[in-house]
């Protein structure tokens, strides 16, 4: 079942008078429940592509749909609602709110949505337990290791029950062992809950765990864009 579809997507950046063609005509479809890695060297357009899929950026041209809705037709508020409802984010630098505990960080997307405190707490505790952080619920991010912070970020991305989780280089700041555990955790959640995961990486050692690999170079998909 189709989750996202991109047709001839282009994205240009303007640096003064210079135009940088970050994406040069992307055709991409992703189904529900997939576990997809986007691989490519630095500057190949991985982050730009993930920003577009995550509806936090707009393409210069082309058509892009998430759950059948064309993103460019949505207002900023509607796109924001869509992100809260359907998309979870895992960032390279974890991006946890430093003044909130692990539990409060995970509760945040639900509270933004307007969920009651008790319901948000219940779901967040369950997600933290799922990522193995039951003993760290009251810890602030600065009191946790990189791996633990990234697991909090995964719990936060999943707490709303999104149909799509986007992870931009989620293991870039982690050592190899922790990286494999994080990818393994994401893989387990994908298999168990059928949540679609799309993550970018330039670490080839992690690619043996993915079901589908999209290779990106110079803003173009070399292979893996359209599922046969």
């Amino acid at each position, binding site marked *: 079942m189709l989750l996202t579809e991109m047709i001839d997507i282009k994205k240009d950046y303007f640096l003064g008078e210079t135009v940088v063609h970050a994406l040069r005509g992307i055709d991409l479809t992703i189904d529900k429940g997939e576990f997809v890695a986007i691989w490519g060297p630095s500057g190949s357009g991985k982050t730009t592509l993930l920003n577009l899929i995550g509806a936090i950026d707009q393409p210069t041209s082309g058509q892009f749909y998430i759950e059948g809705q064309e993103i460019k037709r949505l207002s900023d508020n509607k796109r*924001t609602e869509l992100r809260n409802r359907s998309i979870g984010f895992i960032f390279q630098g974890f991006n946890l709110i*430093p003044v909130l505990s692990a539990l409060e960080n995970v509760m945040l997307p639900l509270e933004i949505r307007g969920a009651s405190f008790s319901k948000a707490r219940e779901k967040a505790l369950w997600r933290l337990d799922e990522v193995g952080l039951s003993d760290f619920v009251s810890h602030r991010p600065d009191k946790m290791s990189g791996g633990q912070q990234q697991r909090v970020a995964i719990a936060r991305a999943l707490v709303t029950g999104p149909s799509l989780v986007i992870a931009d280089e989620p293991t870039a700041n982690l050592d190899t062992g922790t990286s494999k555990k994080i990818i393994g955790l994401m893989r387990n959640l994908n298999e168990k809950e059928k949540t679609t995961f799309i993550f970018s990486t330039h670490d080839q050692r992690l690619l043996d765990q993915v079901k589908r690999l999209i290779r990106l170079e110079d803003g173009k998909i070399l292979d893996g864009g359209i599922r046969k």
Partner: protein
Amino acid sequence: MIKWIKIALRNILKNRRRSFVTLLAIAMGFAAVSIFRGYIHNTYEGLRQSAIRGEGLGHLTIYKEGWLEKGKADPDRYMFSQKEFQRLIDLVEENEDVILATPQINISGLVSNGRTSTIFLANGVIPRDEKTIKGAWASFRPVKGDGLSDKKPYGVEIAEDLASHLDLGPGSYGVVMATTLDGQMNALDIEVAGVYDTGSDATNDKYMRVPLVFAQSLYDTEKADRLVVLLNHWEKTETVRNRLLGKLSVAGLRCEIKTWNELSLFYSKVKGMFDMIFLFIFVIVLIIVVMSVVNTMGMAVLERTREIGTLRALGLKQRGVSILFAIEGAMLGLLGTIFGVILNVAVWGVIRIVEPTYIPPGVSTPVPLIVNLVPQAMLILMVFLILLSLIAAILPARRAARQNVVHALGHV
């Protein structure tokens, strides 16, 4: 909402030094404005009492229409006859807020001790009514001697400096001279029944208080130029004036009614000056608070750009980001004003213990420096500064909210 308040509070605590400086600016500003407000509140209260009780203006003064404009040129025509003021008193005293309505007359002339003479201005009053008007104020500026009495129509009270110039004291005798309303010269003996301090250098060398019948006798008339009305509360002054104007008009009495603050030039001038100083201090505090909050929130937005990007990615709308920072600004205002209240009460306590005094310009004796605690004014100032902090935070908050999410996430 609790979540956002929690985040705002924790961020304030996280940046302790910067928050402390901002809170200190708000607290000092609040305390400065509130203490000065407390001081002028006490001063206004004192001046009001001084005008109503001390100067004997009462709350309202009723004149025959035209007296204020043409009374000096043709006093006889614009004074109330005995029959008129008796009717007026009956009508005015029907009002439940009126404690007293009493006729008075202003006179002027020369006062002599037999060797030297000087000019005087005197107020002709009914002694028992004057006591009612003075009330507790009488103990604030006590009269040396027996004071005015209905039983001694020639016994007068004389202001301190005037008594000193003429070498008169309680129990000594003198003569007053004036022109009657018909233009004849008239002179009457006086006995100094009391010496008093008017509280002002400008009037202490020329004022006297005399019984009404004495003043009428000196002017050879049975009339009075005004009716002074004392109310049960000064805040009812305007309401009762309007009510009386209607009532007197219906009764066919053409009168003008002035309030105590319209007649007390000293009160109006001092109030005008203090109001201007208050506005000046208030504007300075306002600028300090706005600049402190804008600076603090501007820094916060800059430092937390990535956090803003994350919140936006997680689904917080632009409005939500604005609210988050606005709450932080309001929290700074709230905490700052709470510290301000503590500072204000501490200064108030110190002033109460030390009891400093000073001599204001034009006043003859030292007066205590008193600062009132005015909870209502403090609350209004508190709400105002909190709203001001909130509004000051909105500018950087809107900037934060409008940031491009991708750029915000990439901010280092």
